[in-house]
């Protein structure tokens, strides 16, 4: 099995938007920033479990739709509060395709 798994096309995700991937490690939110950089985080806000994939994306951050907790997309850390960091996964865009690191399959949720 290769090291990366294809999950779809970059254009399946709108700029400043996100889609989710279901995985053995739970729901993963895959974000696309304005500059087409992509990030993958567990789809669960450390505050009250809100679906981060539904938040507003802005400059490398996402604002949780439930109570406006702001999470940095690269580190998974809350910008203001002292919450535990959201789990991040490796994801990349190559030639318009979206690839996620295969070790996501080994992670237990």
């Amino acid at each position, binding site marked *: 099995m290769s090291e990366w798994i294809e999950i779809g096309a970059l254009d399946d995700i709108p700029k400043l938007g996100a*889609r989710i991937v279901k995985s053995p490690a739970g729901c993963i939110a895959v974000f696309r920033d304005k500059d087409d950089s992509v990030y993958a985080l567990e789809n669960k806000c450390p505050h009250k479990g809100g679906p981060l994939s*539904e938040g507003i994306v802005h400059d490398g951050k996402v604002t949780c739709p439930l109570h406006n907790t702001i999470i940095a997309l690269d580190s998974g850390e809350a910008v*203001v509060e002292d919450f535990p960091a959201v789990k991040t996964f490796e994801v990349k865009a190559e030639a318009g395709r979206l690839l996620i690191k295969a070790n996501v399959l080994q992670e237990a949720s």
Partner: protein
Amino acid sequence: MKRKLVIIGAGMASGRMLEQLIEGNKDAYDVTLFGAEPRGNYDRIMLSPVLSGEKTFEEIITHDSDWYAKNLVITRFNEPVKAIDPKAKIVKSDGGEVAYDKLVIATGSKPFIIPVPGHDLPGVLAYRDLDDVNAMLDVSKKPNAKAVVIGGGLLGLEAAAGLLAQGMDVTVIHLATHLMERQLDPAAGYLLQKDLEKRGIEIHCNAVTDAVLGKEKAEGIVLKDGREFKADIVVMAVGIRPDTALAADAGLAVGRGIHVDDRMITSDSDIISIGECVEHDGAVFGLVAPLYDQAKVAAKTLLDEDAKFIQSDISTKLKVTGVDLFSAGDFAEGDDREEIVLRQTAQGIYKRLILKDNKIIGAVMYGDTNDGSWFFNLMKTGEDISEMRDTLIFGPAYQGGGTADPLAAVAALPDDAEICGCNGVSKSTIVNAINDGADSVGAIQTCTKASASCGSCKNLVSQLLAHSLGDGFSAPVAEPVCGCTSMTHEDVRRMIKSQKLTAMQAVFQACEWTSSSGCHVCRPAINYYLLADWPDDYKDDPQSRFVNERNHANIQKDGTYSVVPRMWGGITTADELRAIADAAEKYDAKTVKVTGGQRIDLLGIKKENLPGIWRDLNAAGMVSGHAYAKGLRTVKTCVGTDHCRFGTQDSTGLGIKLEKRLWGSWTPHKVKLAVSGCPRNCAESTCKDIGVICVDSGYEIGVGGAAGMDLKEIEPLAKVETEDEAMEMIVAFTQLYRENAKYLDRAYKWIDKVGLDWVKEELSTAERRAELVASFDHSQSIYQVDPWEERTEKTEAARFQPIADLSLEVAQ
């Protein structure tokens, strides 16, 4: 070696003392806890909600068996202590003798039973413990059960309200001239009596009980004046007596209660006593606050630490749902006292402050008790109120004018006072943030989250800044949109219009945004301004929408959504209801709820099922209700001339026409309408953003009502004669609001800023109204589309599904 501590009585005081003791030093004592009741410590003052059915017994347990086990407390419940031998230092019960090094007597009090004939019949109860409550609940199950409560004090009235809630016929018999005479003055007692009578409790003051009637069991009572009342139970709640029997038998000094000194030590230096059984400096105690203070002192004494019990003023609140009553201090009249009284009879509000030497010494409030803690605080600190005397009775909100210090109220708040209720931020957290360098409301929002949710505490935060920074702080005249810019909403809107900015990036550029793609605060606002001002040129940006408006459904706390189909004017049909029922079943709606806006909410729908449920509802002819949108929500109606014998106009018809004209339009905040067919106002028009009340001669249109975070009554905008004129006026008003208001300002907030006179002026000429209506209709030609239908097509619907599903892949 650990010393042995024996505690007699498992009530609230002993529970609190145990906590303090264990927290102080859990290894100091081996503890044995005796209790006469067959259960451990529970919150006795919460028995009233248990009686009324608002809480269960489990919810009021303060210490459960796990807690005792964990803290190695040996419990001997259901085992009354028979005697104390202070010389041998042992206590005796049916289970034998237990030796102690230190003994705590917390036997509490006994209810006082009036010794009238028949007082010992079955069915005569006190209101003291869970057994009493259970006995009352048992009787209440009988249909048409009747209860007589003797005693119109705090306890008796709580019992009466609880029994009423259980469906019993309740009569209160009270000896004094007004209810709760120890806490209330006659005026407040009268208001309380009227309130309770309105709820269905029969009340007789000045009534002296002569006897309990009945042979085998209580069947009623008779008063001295001969009046008789039938009853299945008679509850005596006339007072309590400290339970001093054990202490007296043991030879301790006892007066009304067990004598204790400031350290809660009795006349025997190894015996401590706390709670309702003690007498300290001539006083006995019945309310919980001083008991907790005693518990704290007793724990310290047991740990050989210094502590002193000081009696202080206490305040009272009656725990009867829906009755707001507050009393504190001394409120008797006297030559050396003055009083300030405020009565608003129509609202049932009564406030009275008793002053002595320019200090508050007592306060009684009825109907509106919000300022109770502020007054109580002034009373406890003994503050000189002569400076704010004239406005004192209006509470802290009115202390801004004159020579009074506008910051006095916020300065007076204790450190743990909650400033931001949404995010639970206390005064001290905010003050610490200010001391760490936060110097604006925005900065405080960022580092504490205070005022970051509903924003209603912004003013308080601002005052805290002013108070903490002194002259270094000047309240900003206008708040910028967000941290990305220094411009206000008004500035940005002006720029968008004057510079013809038709794209988000153009706004960021022209207004010198400091972030490249804005933030969750500014993007939805700018997106709204652009689509409202340039319907032709700007394309709505879903990524700048809050989740609800992007997904056209209301997100719930578990990440599922609620779906509300539109019901024009609140009218539906059997076919629509059938389709809704089918959809609810097919898509597994967890809850189906009728909303306040006269339609049906299907809750608990999964995101991936949204396009499916929309397709089904579309097929039955229904469109999105926009129950999630900053846009037109509902037009509530009554049945008007169609059915109602009072209806003056076709209110339902006008409501449906308005909803069909206005639906789908985006607005700065939600917009709710209502049309009532007559001034009886069954559609509640007076608290809507736009409310119409039909009268014989036409239509009265009011605007700026709300029933949310703020409660606002509409103000009259215009009165017109025909339905067409009403439509025109309302559409023109809506467009004026769309073009001018700040994003997230409800109509009333906007009107507050621009003034109703300006709005009326704008709408006064036919030309201007026509212009506004034309702009609105043009916008509607683009935006009045059913978002559900748009998203049930294949490519759009796919966006609601996961991009990939790896959950079934097997790891190699």
